[in-house]
């Protein structure tokens, strides 16, 4: 069973979102990393780039294939996890902490409310499995 921390929010495309004031941290879920398998490259966005909700913001490549990582809400990139350039496997080893991918500064925090809760996300992956 994959881990789904209850204090995070989730997307239908398997990103997790941690809210901290007006900034969110985004990564991919434990379920997503186990489906992808060994991650070998991560293509990160630039700080200062702005994205609309649903836009492809980063790319994760595993041996199996390529996956786009989407922006969960509108925002501006304020930090990226440079560590992933050298140690992409952090996404497999610690998807919710050291494997975080980027941070977005969010204008409209109410958009966060539309994201899935842990229970809702769990129900979604139960359907996919």
């Amino acid at each position, binding site marked *: 069973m994959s881990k789904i921390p209850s204090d995070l929010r989730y997307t239908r495309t398997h990103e997790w979102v941690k809210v901290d004031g007006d900034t969110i941290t985004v990564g991919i879920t434990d379920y997503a990393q*186990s489906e992808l*398998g*060994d991650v070998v490259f991560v293509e990160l966005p630039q700080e200062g780039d702005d994205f609309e909700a649903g836009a492809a913001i980063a790319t994760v490549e595993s*041996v*199996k*294939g390529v996956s786009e990582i989407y922006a969960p809400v509108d925002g501006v990139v304020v930090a990226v996890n440079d560590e992933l350039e050298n140690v992409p496997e952090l996404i497999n080893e610690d998807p919710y902490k050291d494997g975080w991918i980027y941070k977005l500064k969010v204008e409209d925090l109410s958009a966060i409310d539309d994201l899935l809760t842990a229970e809702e996300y769990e129900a979604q992956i139960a359907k996919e499995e």
Partner: protein
Amino acid sequence: MLRKTPLYSWHVSEGANMTEFAGYQMPLHYKTGIIEEHKNVRLRAGLFDLCHMGQIQVKGRQAGEYLDYVLTQKVSDMPDGLVRYGLLLDFSGGTIDDLMVYKRKEDYLLVVNAANKEIDYTWLLEQKGLFDVEINDLSDSYGIIALQGPASENILAPLLADGLGNLKYLRFIETELLEVPATVSRTGYTGTDGFEIYLPLQAIPALWNLLLEEGKSFGLLPIGLGARDTLRLEMGYSLYGHELSREINPLEAGLKWAIKFDKDDFIGKDALLKVKEEGVKRELLAFKTEGRVIPRNGYKIIADDKEVGFVTSGTYSPTLEVGIALGLVEKGLGDKEFYLDVRGRLKPLEKTKLPFVEASVKK
């Protein structure tokens, strides 16, 4: 309804990530992951469930002549105990399948790709004509386990009453394992030393467990289809549906060595002679990428701002830690600079020689 091998429940109980392949539910990788599984085969040993593959038996007075006619390879001069790689072509020179031929004492065994086994069997029956042969599909009665990697011999030899003797690459013995008749060949699709073991299907789970037990102290691990693919691509071996198909002729795929034009006649010979005469239009090239680029099947290959071909197989090489690819490209571009179209961005490709990684089979 997806089919299952006799090892299906074992794979699931080990937490394998299962995938659909050729109508079967197969392990893509286990909890170890593709990269570690790959490295384990190169350094120690790995065990593969190949029970999805097809096995077609050809026997009878004219079995050799018949196979000389339906296959590109010369078969009738094979001594007992030899394995050869060959191709099954249609009359227009397209490839129906690629396969291994085993010359056993009583019959020939054709080991074919899982996705093509029904097609091959039907085709072989259609071409039988007046040949005095008997053709049987043994796919649902026999299974295959591959044991690959440098430690394979030390794991397997003690399990055989007479050991492995001086068995060389592309040779096999007919012996007994677990008190049932077994065919054991020094073959595989990984480029390392190793064996493929053919056994009645009902004996497969017992052999699997026995090998895992015996192999434990040698670091033997079960290996999924993911690493099977990265291992074969590091060798530049063709995979049907990628480098070979009805639309790609074997001369384009660089398999001239497996086509014996000096045979009287074989299906597809005239078509291929015509291709040769008119000139082969495409060729299979090997490429490496730089930096963070992994070529994927179907990506376009560009030279002089024009699309000149596509990636037939591409992946990340766990040994070299770069992207590697085989690409079918217009012939005669020689030393042009090639680029890969990665989601709209052009990345340089470095043309290289095969194999990507040196093989270590026991010649």
